[in-house]
């Protein structure tokens, strides 16, 4: 896994994840909204993604999750409130990492997911 997309509106969490991915040898594009995430998807190849569910002002990561699913790119939902993740997101059956989770654990989980994705 070389290139990762992070969708996260909390700066400290975003930075921590980005550094953790860099430690693991992956480059991470950090985006704070679905619009930015779509732009990132358009301009580079993405191997996997970590999506914060609630992006503030009622925005969720659902549109990006739909797009990633369409492109068969593996992703994790990273959220503090599963109940508010919404019905649509629950239907994705994407792996969920409950906040707070260690950033290294999040990285390891996504790599694991990528592994099963590639062999599947």
């Amino acid at each position, binding site marked *: 896994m070389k290139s990762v997309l992070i969708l996260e509106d*909390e700066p*400290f*969490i975003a*930075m*921590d*994840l980005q*550094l*953790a991915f860099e*430690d693991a040898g992956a480059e991470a594009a950090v985006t704070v909204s679905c619009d930015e995430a779509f732009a990132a998807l358009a301009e580079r190849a993405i191997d996997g993604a970590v999506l914060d569910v609630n992006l503030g002002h009622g925005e969720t990561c659902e549109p990006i999750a739909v797009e990633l699913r369409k492109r068969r790119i593996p992703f994790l939902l990273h959220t*503090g*409130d599963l*109940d*508010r993740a919404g019905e649509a997101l629950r239907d994705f059956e994407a792996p969920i990492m*409950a*906040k*707070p*989770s*260690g*950033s290294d654990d999040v990285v390891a989980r996504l790599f694991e997911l990528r592994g099963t994705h590639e062999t599947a």
Partner: protein
Amino acid sequence: MQRGDGGGARDTFDQAQQTGRGFSPEHDNFEGSSGLLFEQAMAQTRMAVCLSDPRQEDDPIVFCNKAFEKLTGYRQDEVIGRNCRFLQGPKTNQAQVAKLREAIRTEDVLVVELLNYRKDGSTFWNALHLGPIYDEQGELRYFFGSQWDVTDIHLARAEEKHAKAMAREVSHRLKNVFAVIGGIVNITGRAMDSRSVSNKINERVQALGRAYEPTLDEAAFGTIEVGQAIRSVLSPYDPEGDRFIFEGNGARTEPNAVSAMGLTLHELATNASKYGALSAEGGTIAVSWHHEEDRHGRQALIIDWKETGGPAITQTPTSTGTGFDIAERLLAYSRGTLDRNWEGDGLRARISLPLKA
């Protein structure tokens, strides 16, 4: 024999008869002793009752009792002859009304909760019980309706719902706060080239966060349930859910005890992951808790920790580790203790925390 309030019901019957709208006690076997009992029961019950006649145009009410008047604010003479929809208003749930109509159409028994309006325009939640009454020939004669004011139940439900929503919101925000703290600690650790230190800090901080998290929902009680906090603290050490065996009742403790308890359990679990039962395939830890009198005669919360299936212990470890030192010291501030016994098949530990009287 005293008739008491029964007179009210008699008035109603008389009135109904006088208005000629078809309610006739004689014809409907409301005469004789059963008629008298019916009248008295109707007059005395606090449950609002009305009868309507579906054979008449628009199913008008032909009888109502005192409690109905009291509940709705309408007098009998304002009620008799009208379809009971006059109790509905702008905020009455039309889906519930549709159910009502359907039940009347199919002659079904139904209980619905409706927002109804009194004569003075004020509202009340009405648990309406509706059912058909047949005569001896099996012909539909009346619809029976009993109204019960359940406004207080609705209020309590709404308050409970609100409190739960608030607790969930607080819990969500707290999780986010702890996630942000985790980020800050990791970033700082990286920047200062002290990842091992920052990891340790983070593990402890996050254990604390987990220990407090289940307390939020219950903050109103003033105390927290020990079992929930224990499960929550230990959950990350047992992803498959088959390593810990929990045993305890609904014992509660003060929120203040949570930090020392949470951190101590975290240290025990970390130790078990490195050297104890969690480091070996199939090793398990029994965690139990209860209240008892401690050695000073105070009520205390006792948490017992029993590891089995780990590597055999041949001697008591000489170095106890800074984690346990911190835990013991923290417990001491709450006048609690941590006892550890390294037995052959695994560590036995006991956390004892006095409860404030």
